[in-house]
């Protein structure tokens, strides 16, 4: 049976800013695998159930190897290297395996003392900035930016150069030329870094990667090294920054949860997993391209068709999570989809977890009376306009 053209738009309007668009609950119940018009107007299958999201993202026949449709035509420059999240195995494996050793549970644990210190320093900064200070500017953004800079060996004094371009890259509606310009500037920034580390090796990740690459069967070119650096830099700071700020907003709505967390800080990991699940900042899901006809949840997705796996919907699948909208730190541990699934699942997830756990526990320990303090008549500026959800700013007091 061929599927008719869909005029149904993908759910995008939120009613409650801390909940996914209500359309997803309906799709989960009534049409878990269905055709929609996606955000850029393409006919796309939208997959919402937990099991189906895992089936799509875990199946290599759903390819990641495509140029994002919104960039078609622009990305034909000769020296353009696709980020490795846009490759399939085995090409993807060449990149991933060169990096996994850097992000193991053990490696990340070694970073914990440094992160703790850095979090305390940022809390001092926030306190000094005084009441009404922006939590994003003084806490949520600098922590992961500093961590990824230290890890990669990027001088933090350059943070203005990469933070503004990263933000542009993640803006939903942006002229393709502007997106390309931001990408090219970031690439040049990372190329400079690669050249610097070749001249002056240090103890950080980019230097180790250059050394490891030299021993590989097919060593990375400088452009490939720069593309790895770019991906780690962008993915490493924007996502975690948004999670720190958005989790703060979510917890402030439920002060009893903050009390419980303060009483039992050892459970911070369970709170973080629930926050990751409920807030799912990769708000519009993950795109794949079918390379053959594949059945998912009773529907046949045809070769050449687009699929979006909705992480946010799968994370609230009532068949998997009883009372899916509740933040329940005692919930039976089921994995969530916020880091994706399959061979592309977030490489930096253990680092993100540690940063979130340390930052959130420390924030509520230092400021038990933390509250949102908006100027009169203003509302929290949620990131409806971005690919990664969060808040643009969050004025707080204590």
């Amino acid at each position, binding site marked *: 049976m061929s599927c008719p053209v869909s005029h149904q738009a993908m759910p995008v309007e939120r009613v409650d800013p801390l909940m996914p668009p209500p359309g997803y609950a309906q799709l989960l119940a009534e049409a878990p695998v269905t055709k929609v018009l996606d955000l850029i107007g393409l006919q796309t299958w939208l997959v919402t159930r937990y099991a189906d999201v895992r089936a799509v*993202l*875990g199946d290599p026949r759903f390819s990641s190897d495509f140029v994002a449709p919104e960039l078609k035509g622009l990305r034909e420059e000769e020296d353009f290297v696709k980020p490795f999240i846009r490759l399939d195995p085995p090409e993807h494996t060449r990149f*991933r*395996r*060169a990096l*996994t*050793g*850097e*992000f*193991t*549970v*053990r*490696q990340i644990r070694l970073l914990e003392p440094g992160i703790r210190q850095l979090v305390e320093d940022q809390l001092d900064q926030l306190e000094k900035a005084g009441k009404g200070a922006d939590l994003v500017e003084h806490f949520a953004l600098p922590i992961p930016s500093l961590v990824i800079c230290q890890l990669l060996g990027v001088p933090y004094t350059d943070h203005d150069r990469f933070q503004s371009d990263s933000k542009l890259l993640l803006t939903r509606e942006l002229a393709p030329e502007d997106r390309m310009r931001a990408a090219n500037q970031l690439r040049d920034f990372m190329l400079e870094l690669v050249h610097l580390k070749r001249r002056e090796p240090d103890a950080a990740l980019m230097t180790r990667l250059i050394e490891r690459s030299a021993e590989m069967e097919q060593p990375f070119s400088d452009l490939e090294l720069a593309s790895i650096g770019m991906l780690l830099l962008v993915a490493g700071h924007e996502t975690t920054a948004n999670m720190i700020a958005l989790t703060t907003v979510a917890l402030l709505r439920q002060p009893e949860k903050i009390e419980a967390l303060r009483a039992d800080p050892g459970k911070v990991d369970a709170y973080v997993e629930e926050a990751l699940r409920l807030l799912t900042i990769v708000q519009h899901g993950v795109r794949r391209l079918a390379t053959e006809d594949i059945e998912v949840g009773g529907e046949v997705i045809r070769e050449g068709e687009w699929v979006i796996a909705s992480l946010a919907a799968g994370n609230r699948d009532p068949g998997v999570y009883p009372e899916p909208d509740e933040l329940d730190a005692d919930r039976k*541990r*089921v*994995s969530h989809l916020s*880091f*994706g*699934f*399959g*061979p*592309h*699942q*977030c*490489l930096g*997830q*253990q680092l993100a977890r540690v940063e979130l756990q340390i930052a959130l526990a420390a924030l509520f320990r230092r400021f038990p009376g933390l509250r949102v303090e908006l100027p009169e008549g203003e509302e929290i500026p949620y990131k409806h306009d971005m690919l990664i959800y969060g808040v643009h700013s969050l004025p707080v007091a204590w």
Partner: protein
Amino acid sequence: MRVEIDQDKCCGAGSCVLSAPEVFDQRESDGIVVLLEEEPGDELRDAVEEAAERCPAAAITVLEQ
């Protein structure tokens, strides 16, 4: 219970080490899964099953004996 791993499938996400550190580790060089205990005791069943469920690459198989 017997545990099998597939190092070719493994993508080094580290979920198994969080779920069942007594049974799984990651190679220092490339983060790929290492099996510490092929036949873990029953007290580790929940942890091992959680590890298998969470593995993004379906690289862990739990076999009954």
